[in-house]
């Protein structure tokens, strides 16, 4: 299974959600499908994508939040799994693409290579309420559909190949991404308030 195929299959479902990705290949593969202002790419600060997702989900209970994470990033902030488990916002889906590799920085093996470290087991042990481990695209889509329809925080560990895009780059400045993301959320919240007010 390739991460790019997973993201491509997920893409049509992402438009009415808030998406936070990690750096490198994951961000690039989503961006290349077409940027939307509800996407935030964390191009550095490895490990904090899930924390941003938690801050968003807890403060926007009427929005659905998706974090596209990776094994290297999660390994840098394992405590986040415990914090997510403790507060477990039901509107948060945490997808961890595990390619067993620090792909964007030279392809060095990560601790999850060959199953040495089991991120799904760590997430379960941290207390995350609904953890699935998938290795095939159809399983990934089933787990994602279940997560999106479910009423509890879901964690999906997707085993993917250590392959990424052949190019990197975005026609967007990093603060521009943050400004557009924040503005998008505020406009969406205002629109929801107007709709609620008209009822």
């Amino acid at each position, binding site marked *: 299974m390739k991460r790019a195929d997973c993201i491509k299959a997920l893409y049509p479902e992402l438009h009415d959600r808030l998406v936070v990705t990690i750096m490198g290949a994951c961000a690039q593969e989503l961006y290349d499908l077409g940027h939307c202002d509800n996407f935030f790419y*964390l191009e550095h*600060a490895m490990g*904090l994508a899930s924390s941003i997702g*938690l*801050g968003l989900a*807890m403060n926007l209970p009427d929005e659905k939040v998706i974090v596209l994470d990776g094994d290297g990033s999660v390994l840098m902030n394992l405590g986040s799994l415990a914090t997510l488990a403790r507060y477990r916002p039901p509107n948060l889906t945490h997808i961890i693409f595990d390619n067993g590799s620090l792909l964007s920085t030279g392809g060095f093996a990560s601790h999850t290579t060959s199953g040495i470290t089991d991120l799904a087991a760590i997430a379960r042990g941290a207390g995350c309420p609904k953890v699935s481990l998938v290795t095939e695209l159809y399983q990934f889509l089933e787990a994602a559909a279940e997560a999106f329809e479910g009423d509890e925080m879901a964690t999906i560990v997707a085993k993917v190949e250590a392959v990424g895009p052949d190019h990197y780059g975005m026609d967007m400045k990093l603060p521009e991404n943050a400004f557009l993301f924040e503005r998008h*959320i*505020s406009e969406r919240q205002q629109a929801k308030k107007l709709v609620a007010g008209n009822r």
Partner: protein
Amino acid sequence: MTVSRDNSKMVYEGIKAAGIHFISALPETWLVYLLQLAENDPEMTLVEVAKEEEAIGIAAGAYFAGKPNALLMQNHGFLASINGIVSLALLYRIPLLMLIAHRGHIGEPYPWHTQGGILTEPVLRGLGLPFDSIRDPHKAAKQIREAQTFALSSLSPVALLLTRDLLED
């Protein structure tokens, strides 16, 4: 050493007066009453993290969500958060309001706090972060409000150091 309950309450009231209803924090002795007040306040959401750098991400998420928020941590937690401050908050121009217990400074009897205490202000300066110290509890509310205003206008993290004068009786 006892932590000042009255002054903690005045700081907490300052946080509330600034319209803040979301705090991400890691417990620390000087913050004990502040965090108890937050925990027992139905109007406040308190997220306790496993390590302080997480709180930088959580605060960024809260900011994107449009929720006025603050971070509460010890200075050693600030030191542990630097990559998040640099490569999330500064890089993406995300304002943060950080209330930092300044342990290990003049008057500190515990050796283990001293190196972090001595280095806190130089590191804040090195990062180019605006900061101020709160010593007088009667000025806390104004300082918190002004720090929040400046964080939002400059799109930068701003730190307020909670001093021994403020938090010890």
